């Protein structure tokens, strides 16, 4: 598979797209989390409300039941005590009733004789029309009824049958009346206006006169809710009251959600209704959510700013690192290249460098781009002899001295060491123009060196001819000429390979 080169631009675009995608995902995720949080909060509010209301109603209903049971027990004890006393007059009876009333903290405590005359601590009165439970000739057992007193006061009336004789009269019943307001006081609900309660008769009338929230108030609960819930729910609600069942009802008025929980108070025919305004809880939850959301926004913005700064700095630093590395590599490359093309002994270009230059020149020659080019082949005389007789160190010194001679004289040329004792000098430009003088100077210097036992270098030279196709053509001609010169110098006394 053909791999494509990844450009810097591609990396930046990818990084930018990735960054934007991450940002969008981060915001979308936060928004989704917020929506989920609201939905979960609403569910939690409903669940908590229902649980809270049921628990609250249950406790209050039990409180009333306990109150009723206690009063029944107290009445039985009081009657027992009165029956044991030898009461001879109405005054004594009133006094006894008063003692029991105070001792047992009974509310309006009274005895009823078989003619329906009611005896209390301070009064004696005919009570048939006043106390509905006296409508029956006899009481079969414990009786609980609600008394709607003239003047809007309401009492819970608890009556038990009794069978005692006082002052020669047969007594048939005993009862207490508990003011509903006292019961309401016992229930002690919170005053934070988030929860409300009221006691209702089975037909929805408010008995306790406590306000069940702003909307229902003290109105008949059926009238108040009619039209605000479905007909099915409303009918079911009414049936529950009629049958003494518990349940919940949620309705929305003016965008305010109210939930009521109703629980029957055993034996009284009452329904205890507690209400919680879900919006109160929801508002609190939402306020918390909003604050949390605002905090999240701030965090996101803060993170984005930090991330942006961080990314910018990171990008800058990476770019710098990359540039430094690139620069370093270029330098290394240069060194390596220089090392590859330089002769370690003499410091001039080596044969590898010559071959690269040759290849380039061949190309230019083929293109006809070169017209002035001279090539000089140089060969050190007597190197083998020096190596053999004086050692390689002396040989190396000879090579370096010879190279210095070549470089000094052909200062406008390119000098290459192409072999052990061979050098090639390429002349172009000024070097080419002054070649004749330079070559003559070189040869003269060499001839003097024979006498002073300095390095002797044989050279052959040529220039680019129209028929030349490559550098090698020049090299061949120059090489022949160099051999001729070598012989000539030998005759002048120059050292040879052997001597």
């Amino acid at each position: 598979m053909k791999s494509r080169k990844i450009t810097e631009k591609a990396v930046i675009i990818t990084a930018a797209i990735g960054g934007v995608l991450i940002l969008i995902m981060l915001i979308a995720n936060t928004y989704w989390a917020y929506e989920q949080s609201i939905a979960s909060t609403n569910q939690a509010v409903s669940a908590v409300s229902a649980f809270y209301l049921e628990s609250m109603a249950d406790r209050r209903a039990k409180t009333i039941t306990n109150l009723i049971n206690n009063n029944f027990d107290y009445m039985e004890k009081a009657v027992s005590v009165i029956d044991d006393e030898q009461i001879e007059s109405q005054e004594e009876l009133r006094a006894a009733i008063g003692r029991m009333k105070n001792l047992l903290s009974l509310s309006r405590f009274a005895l009823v004789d078989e003619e329906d005359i009611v005896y209390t601590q301070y009064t004696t009165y005919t009570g048939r029309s006043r106390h509905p439970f006296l409508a029956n000739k006899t009481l079969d057992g414990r009786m609980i009824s609600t008394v709607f007193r003239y003047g809007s006061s309401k009492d819970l009336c608890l009556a038990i049958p009794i069978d005692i004789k006082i002052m020669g009269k047969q007594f048939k019943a005993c009862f207490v009346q508990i003011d509903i307001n006292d019961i309401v006081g016992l229930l002690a609900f919170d005053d934070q206006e988030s929860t409300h309660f009221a006691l209702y008769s089975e037909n929805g009338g408010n008995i306790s006169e406590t306000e069940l929230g702003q909307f229902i108030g003290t109105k008949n609960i059926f009238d108040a809710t009619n039209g605000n819930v479905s007909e099915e729910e409303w009918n079911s609600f009414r049936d529950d009251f009629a049958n003494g069942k518990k349940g919940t009802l949620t309705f929305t008025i003016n965008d305010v959600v109210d939930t009521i929980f109703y629980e029957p108070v055993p034996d009284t025919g009452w329904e205890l209704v507690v209400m919680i305004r879900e919006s109160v809880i929801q508002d609190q939850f939402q306020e918390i959510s909003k604050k949390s959301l605002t905090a999240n926004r701030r965090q996101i913005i803060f993170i984005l700013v930090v991330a942006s700064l961080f990314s910018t700095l990171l990008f800058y630093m990476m770019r710098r690192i990359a540039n430094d590395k690139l620069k370093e590599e270029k330098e290394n490359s240069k060194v390596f290249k220089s090392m590859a093309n330089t002769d370690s002994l003499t410091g001039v270009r080596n044969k590898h460098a010559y071959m690269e230059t040759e290849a380039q020149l061949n190309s230019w020659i083929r293109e006809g781009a070169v017209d002035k080019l001279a090539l000089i082949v140089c060969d050190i005389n007597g190197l083998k002899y020096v190596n053999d007789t004086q050692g390689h160190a002396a040989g190396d010194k000879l090579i370096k001295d010879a190279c210095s001679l070549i470089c000094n004289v052909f200062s406008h040329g390119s000098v290459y060491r192409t072999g052990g004792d061979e050098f090639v000098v390429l002349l172009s430009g000024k070097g080419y123009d002054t070649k004749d003088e330079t070559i003559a100077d070189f040869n003269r210097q060499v001839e003097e060196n024979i006498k002073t036992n300095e390095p002797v270098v044989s050279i052959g030279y040529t220039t680019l001819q129209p028929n030349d196709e490559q550098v090698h053509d020049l090299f061949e001609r120059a090489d022949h000429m160099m051999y001729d010169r070598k012989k000539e110098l030998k005759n002048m006394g120059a050292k040879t390979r052997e001597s």
Partner: protein
Amino acid sequence: MSEKINNIFRKFLIVAFSIVIAGTSSGYSNDTEIKADDTEGVVDFVHSLDDYVPAKNRYNFYFTYKIVHPWWDAVALGMEDAQKKYLDKGIVITYEYMAPDAASYEDQTKRLLEAQKGDYDVIGVDVADEEKISPVLDEMVAAGNKVMTFSSSDAATDCKRIAYVGNTHNYQDGADLTEALCKKLGYKGKVGILVGSNGAPCHEDRAKGAKDTIAKYKNMEIVAVEYDQDSIDMAYNLAKQMLGDNPDIAGFVCCNMSNPVGTARAVTELGSSAVIVGMDHDQEALHYLKDGVIYCLGVQDCYSIGFDTLQVAVKIADGNLPGDLFPDKTDESTTIIYQEDAELMLEVLYGDVTQ
């Protein structure tokens, strides 16, 4: 060089991470944080005792009234209110409040004679029959008993009872109700009159007021006057009988508490369109008023009658006579209410309009 850059990069990473953690945490460190209606003109439930200082700290009274009936239960509640208020002042008042199941001057006479034998500071009477009971009261007074009358029926004007607390305008109540009926009927048509107990002053006075009013209009005629003896069932039967005898009866005047209830039942059952006017605040009658079966009712302030009766009784027990402390007749009000007032009255008097 590259080592130096690596060090800077490492330091920057630590600082940046610390700042991010600090910034993220700082987000969490933020605070993640409801008639009194005008019923006073009809019934006054708010009373306080006057400035009179009783001479004793214990009193014992005896009260008897015409018949066991919710109307007098309302009077009893006013008495109880006064008794509690005296008790709060350290004055203990005990009393009997007794009545027969059926109105009877014989029964009342028997009760009064029996009460004479008791140790009562004052004996109060709601006169069942003015003619029969007034002499009994005179004898009791002559025997040294302190006797007063109360509620809706006073004794004869020459009776020696000490004082009276209650309705002093029964004639006018009957006249006012009947005037309302006549106006409603356009001052024409047949009218039936139901009265309570024979001889009961309040009932008789109202019936007289009704008769006199109707007599003013030539196109109006009284077809029957019947007594139900304060029995709803009897009132019902009498009304049915009147409607049977005179199907074109245009209206009824009911002079006591049981009359309008029985008459409304009969009118409803027979589908009559007769207009009913009547007395008092029976719960069933108020429902009929609410439903438009009864046109209007004259409601007496029973509560105040009871409260004031006890206050006057205390003063009488202390040997006071009518004058600056209390009048010979303490008048209590009667208010005529109509359909639009019914619901409120039901709520005020019985607490639950839907009961």
